[in-house]
């Protein structure tokens, strides 16, 4: 899932205080699970903003809403008209959702971020989230015992560990596990340690963010959808 954290309230206040009518717009998927930007958090943030506006004597209307997902068009449709009656949307969706809605609104009104989108992670225990993947576009987990060297090693080493490993912890902090310590131990358990004896050559990072904006196009799905639309249109004509 995508993990985010609410921005500091003062920063949010600075963003919204010049507007008259603000919609705090939550997303009920990933960011709801990490208690950062779901419907509930949008509601709480709305009350805080109302209180602050009252305190400061600022004339500000703040409402809230939430939808299931901020990354696909159909979820937005029922609320589109309502959204357009505001002069600012403060989205508490992840960065994807903020971008997606801003593109959808096409410059007709601003969309501001209410959270800092932090990483792709897992939830090993309630209220605790850890980064597990960096979306590098060329997964190597089969070589590293299912432990990501790209984001779980502070130096993204492909031939670790470095000399900084100390009692299984990474040199950046004694609260951070050294990924390569974990990788070596995991590969031992799997009986595949010898895979680590080979030098991994320099990576092609162009599959990651370094190759410019990325897209995935599934032609068969697109062709199918197009056909369905055509069929619907011909049926309508009949």
């Amino acid at each position, binding site marked *: 899932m995508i993990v985010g954290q609410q921005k500091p309230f003062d920063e949010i206040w600075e963003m919204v205080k010049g507007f008259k009518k603000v919609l705090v717009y939550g997303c009920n998927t990933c960011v709801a699970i990490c208690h950062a930007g779901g419907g509930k958090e949008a509601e709480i943030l709305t009350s805080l903003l109302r209180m602050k506006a009252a305190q400061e004597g600022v004339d500000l209307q703040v409402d809230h809403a939430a939808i299931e997902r901020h990354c696909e068009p159909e979820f937005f449709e029922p609320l589109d008209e309502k959204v357009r009656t505001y002069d600012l949307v403060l989205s508490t969706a992840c960065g994807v959702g903020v971008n997606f809605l801003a593109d959808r609104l096409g410059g007709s009104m601003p969309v501001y971020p209410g959270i800092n989108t932090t990483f792709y992670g897992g939830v090993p225990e309630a209220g605790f989230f850890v980064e597990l993947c960096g979306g590098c576009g060329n997964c190597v987990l089969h070589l590293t015992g299912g432990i990501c060297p790209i984001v779980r090693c502070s*130096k993204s*080493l492909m031939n670790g560990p470095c000399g900084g490993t100390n009692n299984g912890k990474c040199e950046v*902090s004694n609260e951070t596990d050294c990924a390569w310590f974990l990788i070596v131990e995991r590969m031992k358990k799997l009986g595949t340690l010898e895979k680590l004896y080979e030098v991994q050559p320099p990576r092609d990072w162009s599959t990651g963010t370094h190759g410019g904006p990325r897209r995935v196009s599934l032609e068969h799905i697109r062709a199918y959808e197009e056909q369905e639309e055509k069929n619907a249109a011909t049926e309508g004509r009949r």
Partner: protein
Amino acid sequence: MKSGSNLERVIASGKMAVTAELGPPMSADPHEVIKKANILKGFCDAANITDCQTAVVRISSIAAAFIALREGLEPVMQMTCRDRNRIAMQADLLGAAALGLKNCLCIAGDHQMFSAAGKLKGHPGAKNVYDVDTCQLVGIMRKMRDEGLQQGGDKLEVAPKFFIGASWTPMGDPMDFRPYNLKKKVDAGADFIQTQGIYDMELFRSQMEKARNLGLLERTAMLAGIIVPKSAMMLKYMDSSVAGVTVPKSLIERMNKAKEAAGDDKKKARELQEQEGIKITIELIQQALEIPGVRGVHIQAIEWESAIEPIVKAAGLYPRPTFPDA
């Protein structure tokens, strides 16, 4: 000869090699480098010029290495993977070779978060690079030298001829993997290895035996790292906090005794500890040189370059070999 560097010649001659270390200053003034180079000159075969160690901005390794070379001290330039992508690395290697530099040590580099750990502010908010890692950088340098090709495949008109080094932390954990960690660096093309500072020679000896069984010690020149201890406090700190370094209690005890012998006299306590530190270093060097497969020592006297002369002399490593046509 792969590079024809002085260090390579000493190693090829079969004599024990001696390298030292020169840390460039946080200053645009070259005099500090000139001064240190002249202190070290004649007492080592080459000196490592650190590359923004602990992620603190200093004169770049290449520039300081060039200044040292001009002073007559052969440098081992260092290159971290932290600050450059493969484009900048290869461009810098061409430039360094064009300036006459012949040795290069490849290291991952201390993470930039590290820089905030000490007294300095550093740049913990910097973006690091880590496009390639140490093994990969070693491989790139070897490909440039031996195949005349850039990593991307383009031809080089004149290839940079470096004597390629890498570091090794023999006692870092997971310790049973460390010999393989070394194997990867050697497979990638490391001509020489400088180790992390060693105080526990018995442990090092056993790691060296594993390296020998993997056939690595015929393929690379192992220089045992010795960090000259200055005080009991420094030894305790290194034992508890420096990754891959363990200090036997007996050494800490010896330093403590030297300190206590001075009573309340702080200046004397410092002097006695420094003397003891030099003695310990000489013993460590002698023990290291007896370990089969060790081809020399890398002596680090951090911000204490003047210690190198007495150490090298007392360890029987002076004068350093010279080569008539060099």
